[in-house]
């Protein structure tokens, strides 16, 4: 599979690394402008792994352009290391020291013919041009003059065959037929996996691309000996485009940082041919516009779907109300004396607060049987309730009274006896939305009765521990953007409410109403 001589330093790997097919977009990539390389550069010439780059090309392939930059440089000082094998192809050449590179570059469009010296001689004679393609080459030559560069192209229809690729295919088939070697090569140790079968089936099911257009970028790296040009044609790049899937493959892939190189053994010494291949295409306006349109359509559709599913109505509380959504969870308890325990809770609402569904203000859990040394109890009780606060009270009282939640832990003994195991209470975190967890320590009255407590000193004893969690969310029209004044830096809910213009406007309305009422009464008195 190696081509003539020892100069082919980059043996293509058998296993082709397939790059991420989707994420790369050849036209997108080009939006970042390619930087001009400075004329003088130092390369640490390391062997670049050649692999195929696959690119999605949603735009017209006619807009695709590559730029190849190349230079031929003599090698640096001969390597003093005598052990080194001169003919070793895999060895990276030494970087040419302090050589001023004179890069030449050529922009090549898709299926754009560039002529070599011998080709331009050939096609400039109309007698040589028989087929349509050849005639078009002749016309092209007449327009642009003679091709001179050492880099040129073969386009679709010229009958140039891709030897590397062909040899790779035979190699693959060879491996399939000689399974032992295939196994050795891939070091499959698992006997259960029939490697032959799967490899064969993957080859059999191989999707054969039918509409493939190819073009090749070629360099003639020959030399002239005694005025005779000895041709040395090298394939630099193979570009393939599959029109059905709009996928472009570039082998070897684009490079912008490190050049590929070819080692040349010429009569006047070893030389290196260095070359870069860059994606030089520019995204067309048409393509950008299309993409924007598609994106817009997608987002509009998603919005429509959501609207259709949910509708656009999200009920707001009345203007004078603050809604406090309370999601209460009674999680677990421990260290209560008796094993079968349940919890009752009750939310006490002070003045200014109300609840549309008072039955949600109280509840009880399942009975749970304690396990392990700690008498662990799991309740996992979830409930939710909506507390409403009248915002007019806020202007009168300043800081509103806080609702409290009371817990009572009961044990259920045999014979249906119930005991109060513990009591706990907590002010609800209504002023701070978010998630709150509490470990409440419970106590019990020593007299054994919870009711009828006089206002005197009572003896209590600490019992178990209750774990509860609350999620609090607020909703009020006062929080709407239209009513907030300036930056929202207030930390606490009542400050937020007080700074809202809605509250002020409600106050003003109330004052105006009271004034009007007083006036009206006075007017009536006079009558």
């Amino acid at each position, binding site marked *: 599979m190696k081509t003539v001589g020892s100069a082919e330093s980059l043996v293509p790997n058998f296993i082709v690394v397939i790059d991420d097919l989707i994420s790369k977009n050849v036209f997108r990539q080009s939006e970042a402008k390619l930087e001009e390389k400075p004329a003088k550069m130092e390369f640490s010439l390391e062997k670049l792994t050649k692999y195929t780059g696959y690119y999605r090309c949603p735009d017209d392939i006619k807009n695709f352009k590559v730029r190849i930059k190349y230079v031929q440089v003599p090698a640096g000082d001969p390597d003093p290391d005598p052990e080194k094998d001169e003919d070793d192809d895999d060895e990276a050449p030494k970087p040419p020291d302090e050589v001023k590179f004179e890069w030449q570059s050529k922009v090549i469009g898709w299926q754009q013919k560039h002529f070599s010296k011998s080709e331009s001689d050939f096609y400039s004679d109309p007698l040589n041009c028989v087929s349509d393609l050849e005639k078009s080459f002749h016309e092209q030559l007449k327009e642009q003059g003679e091709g001179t560069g050492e880099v040129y192209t073969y386009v679709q229809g010229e009958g140039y065959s891709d030897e590397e690729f062909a040899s790779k295919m035979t190699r693959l088939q060879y491996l399939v037929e000689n399974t032992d070697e295939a196994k050795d090569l891939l070091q499959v140790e698992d006997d259960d996996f029939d490697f032959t079968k799967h490899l064969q089936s993957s080859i059999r099911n191989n999707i054969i691309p039918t509409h493939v257009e190819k073009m090749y970028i070629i360099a003639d790296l020959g030399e002239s000996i005694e005025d005779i040009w000895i041709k040395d044609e090298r394939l630099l790049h193979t570009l393939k485009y599959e029109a059905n899937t709009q996928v472009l493959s570039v082998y070897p892939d684009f490079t912008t940082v490190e050049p590929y190189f070819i080692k040349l053994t010429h009569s006047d010494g070893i030389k290196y041919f260095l070359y870069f291949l860059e994606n030089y295409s520019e995204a067309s306006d048409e393509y950008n516009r299309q993409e924007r349109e598609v994106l817009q359509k997608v987002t509009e559709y998603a919005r429509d779907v959501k609207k259709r599913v949910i509708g656009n109505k*999200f009920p707001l509380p009345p203007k004078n109300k603050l809604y406090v*959504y309370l999601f209460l969870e009674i999680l677990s308890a421990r260290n209560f004396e008796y094993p079968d325990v349940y919890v009752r809770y009750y939310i006490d609402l002070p003045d200014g607060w109300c609840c549309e569904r008072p039955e949600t203000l109280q509840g009880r859990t*399942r009975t749970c049987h304690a396990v392990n040394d700690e008498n*662990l109890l799991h309740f996992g009780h979830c409930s939710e309730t909506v507390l409403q606060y009248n915002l007019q009270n806020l202007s009168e009282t300043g800081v509103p009274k806080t609702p409290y939640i009371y817990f009572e832990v009961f044990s259920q003994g045999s014979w249906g006896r119930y005991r109060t195991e513990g009591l706990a209470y907590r002010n609800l975190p209504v002023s701070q*939305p978010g998630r709150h967890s509490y470990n409440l320590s419970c106590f019990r009255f020593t007299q054994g009765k919870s009711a009828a407590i006089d206002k005197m000193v009572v003896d209590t004893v600490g019992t178990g521990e209750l774990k509860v969690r609350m999620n609090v*969310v*607020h909703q009020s029209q006062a*929080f709407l953007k239209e009513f907030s004044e300036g930056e929202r830096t207030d930390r606490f809910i009542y400050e937020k409410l007080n700074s809202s213009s809605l509250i002020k406007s409600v106050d003003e309305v109330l004052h105006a109403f009271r004034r009007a009422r007083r006036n009206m009464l006075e007017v009536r008195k006079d009558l």
Partner: protein
Amino acid sequence: MAEVHIIGQINQAKDFPKQHLFCKWHLQIGNNWRVISGKREGQTQVSYSQFGGTTTWSFPIDIHLATAGLQGWPKIYIEVYHLDWLGRSHLFGYGLVTVPTSPGSHTLDCYTWRPFGSLRERFVQYFLGGGLQLKYPDLIFSSGERYKLSTEAMGVVSFDLSVLLRNFTNYGIEYN
């Protein structure tokens, strides 16, 4: 219309009496709520740990919801099962946990329980496995009926959840 993303995982189970556990989960939402994308229920793989008593599932959850009201905020309902060496699965716990209402990433513990049978039922359960199950697990959601149950504490299932909220501020909602 406001939107909620719940992204995370059912992380692990601890303090269960046995290993080889799997978990069925279901997102419980109110009538106002709709699932826009993502799976609303699922089942984890059977998992056991050779080291320590925790069973790790790391089962992914990714749901996108839309709502027209805060009532019926999402809750995750789980059923934990034990798969024994005969291939039978036994109920090991029910659990219900409220998804946090504040955005951000949260670690959430769900305290599970299972029905606690009579002495004879527990005796049978001890030797033969199995045990009581709820005929109508729906009654876990209705707090009214729940108190008739007698249960015992089982393990804790922990969740790692990230909550993303969108457009709630347009409706005068403050969540943190």
